[in-house]
């Protein structure tokens, strides 16, 4: 653990130092930077009859140059690009001036701190909810597997096959109802899968006219259900559960009469209440040991999950243009080329990831101390 701690702290110090130097460099550069005009493009900018915002005018200028100075097409291409770059820089400088954007200041830092706290809060809530959701979904799926349940469509197919083999000439309303219910469940599951795999912006734009998509609640909801986060890590946890359930100690425990039935809420089975509980415990059941060992392995993937979650939150804030949020601010400052603020925000996000990595490693270390003698180093 000491080695890991040292590694994390040294990378935090080194990266922070690099970022601080860069922030200082960009910040002190504001007063010096002026939009320099290339001597090569000056005569063309003086032509007031050319509107450089109009693509047609730019194309005409390029074609005219190609006709009057043949064989220099790449140079003309470069010239047009230089004009565009100069104008973009000029607009950025003007915008900075108009909006009084002078880079990082104490008031800006205060503003960013508020957004940062908000970002961390949303992140923690989503992390907690996904931590719970991942385990609950995986456990429910594992129980379904142990009950030898097929997919709804396969269940429908075998039901119809059985039904027409046993009573080929009669059709009851209850059979139709059962078939429709299975089909409905299959469709609902398919729809749910599509939602869980949708990038946040697809879901948000689908419902933008119906709900207030800028609220924190909606952000948290999107963070949990979208971008494939929940389903991907639930699958990982499910894989750990399946792998654990095949190990020898489980068979030994079953032979030694530990409870092994997976009927929900039945005597000797698994209680649904315990499955839905935040702290999942299944005393007296073999699943308790499967779950603990799977959860221990899952802890190692939390760092990865956290990083993916932050990617998701950044996408949500940026793609939905949620004003007053950290990543929206990041995007705006990229747009206005205020790179000192951009770097400050990125440093903040880096520190969140590093903090999560530290916490996750420590948690894993504590768990290792309880269960695994080899993992204590």
């Amino acid at each position, binding site marked *: 653990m000491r080695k890991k701690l040292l590694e994390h702290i*040294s990378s935090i110090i080194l990266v922070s130092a690099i970022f601080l130097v860069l922030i200082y460099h960009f910040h002190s550069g504001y007063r010096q930077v002026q939009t320099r005009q290339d001597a090569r493009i000056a005569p063309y900018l003086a032509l007031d009859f050319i509107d450089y915002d109009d693509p047609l005018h730019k194309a005409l200028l390029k074609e005219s140059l190609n006709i009057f100075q043949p064989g220099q097409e*790449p140079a003309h291409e470069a010239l047009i*690009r230089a004009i565009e770059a100069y104008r973009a820089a000029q607009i950025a400088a003007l915008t900075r001036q108009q909006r009084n954007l002078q880079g990082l200041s104490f008031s800006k830092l205060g503003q960013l701190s508020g957004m940062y706290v908000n970002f961390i809060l949303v992140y923690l809530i989503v992390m907690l909810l996904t931590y719970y959701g991942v385990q609950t979904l995986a456990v429910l799926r594992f129980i379904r597997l142990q009950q030898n349940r097929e997919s709804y469509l396969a269940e429908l197919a075998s039901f119809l096959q059985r039904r027409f083999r046993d009573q080929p000439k009669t059709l009851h309303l209850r059979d139709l109802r059962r078939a429709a219910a299975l089909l409905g469940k299959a469709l609902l599951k398919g729809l749910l899968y599509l939602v869980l795999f949708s990038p946040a912006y*697809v879901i948000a734009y689908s419902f*933008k006219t*119906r709900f207030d998509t800028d609220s924190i609640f909606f952000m948290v909801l999107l963070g949990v259900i979208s971008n494939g986060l929940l389903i991907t890590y639930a699958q990982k946890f499910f894989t750990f559960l399946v792998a654990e359930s095949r190990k020898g100690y489980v068979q030994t425990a079953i032979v030694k009469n530990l409870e092994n039935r997976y009927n929900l809420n039945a005597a000797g089975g698994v209680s649904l209440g315990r499955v839905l509980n935040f702290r999942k415990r299944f005393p007296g059941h073999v699943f308790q040991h499967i779950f603990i060992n799977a959860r221990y392995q899952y802890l190692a993937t939390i760092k990865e999950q956290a990083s993916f979650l932050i990617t998701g939150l950044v996408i949500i804030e940026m793609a939905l*243009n949620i004003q007053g949020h950290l990543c929206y601010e990041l995007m705006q400052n990229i747009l206005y080329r205020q790179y000192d603020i951009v770097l400050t925000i990125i440093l903040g996000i880096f520190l969140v990831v590093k903090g999560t990595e530290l916490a996750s490693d420590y948690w894993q270390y504590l768990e290792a101390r309880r269960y695994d003698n080899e993992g204590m180093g």
Partner: protein
Amino acid sequence: MPLLAQLQTIYQRKDQLWLLIWLGGTLLLWGWNRLFLNAPALARVETGFANTFIIALLVILLSAALGWLSGVGLYFLEKAGNSLPYLTLSFLLNIIRSIPQIVGILLGYILITVQIQSGALQRPGAVIPVIAMVISLFVFLEISDLVRERIAYYRKRDFYNAMQVCGIPEWQIVNREILWRNSLAHLFNKLISIFGVTIFLLCSIDFIISVGLSGNVSSVNLPATLGSLLAKIDSKQDILAIGHVLTHPGYLPRLFFEHLQGITVAFLIVFTLLCIYKIANGFARRHEL
């Protein structure tokens, strides 16, 4: 009867089943669009789809190369006891790991934009490999970790020492026996997942850039992808129409005729991500990974 048996085999091999579902679904969608979507929009969707897949394919090639090299390199550096290069490389990889992928790729895109504007990246065909390189820089670590995990796993087996005693060079044991002969299925499965992650990241970054940074990159010709197509105003309006269906269910059929561009692009992204997830799971189950 052989056909039925074949179908049953495919049904049991979930990865192949989902690959067929993806191909079938995409072809069906293309056929529908041929009938009902206007030709320029269809051409845009086809280009976006092709670019997205070309970039994703390039990313998995580059990630495989980078992951293999860094994984094997780290192993040999650690074993050689050459602590400074080993510490430096693992430190650098850990820093990349701590930067959320989307932020890293966004910074990479800004550099690409600057390069295009300065004329260093002139040919449109050259932009695609550079984008692939930027994305692979932030996703290859999964391969690197897997390579190291596989080496560590086989390192404890008897055959490793036995082969060394027989005089087989260690690089050959690691590269050929462990990785090529005994870990290809694991690596392939990871590459399928990376393919999905790449499509997700690429579409998201292009969407973000097209929506939020359009002023900065409008003069730059970045290749059209599904993400940038989705960010176009007509596509966004098509997606907004889905919300309208919640209160006006009668509007649903019109989505498939009047809002086809946006619906097609969104569906392609979501359907592809879902199918890749299912393919990766099916593959892992079939090979018992």
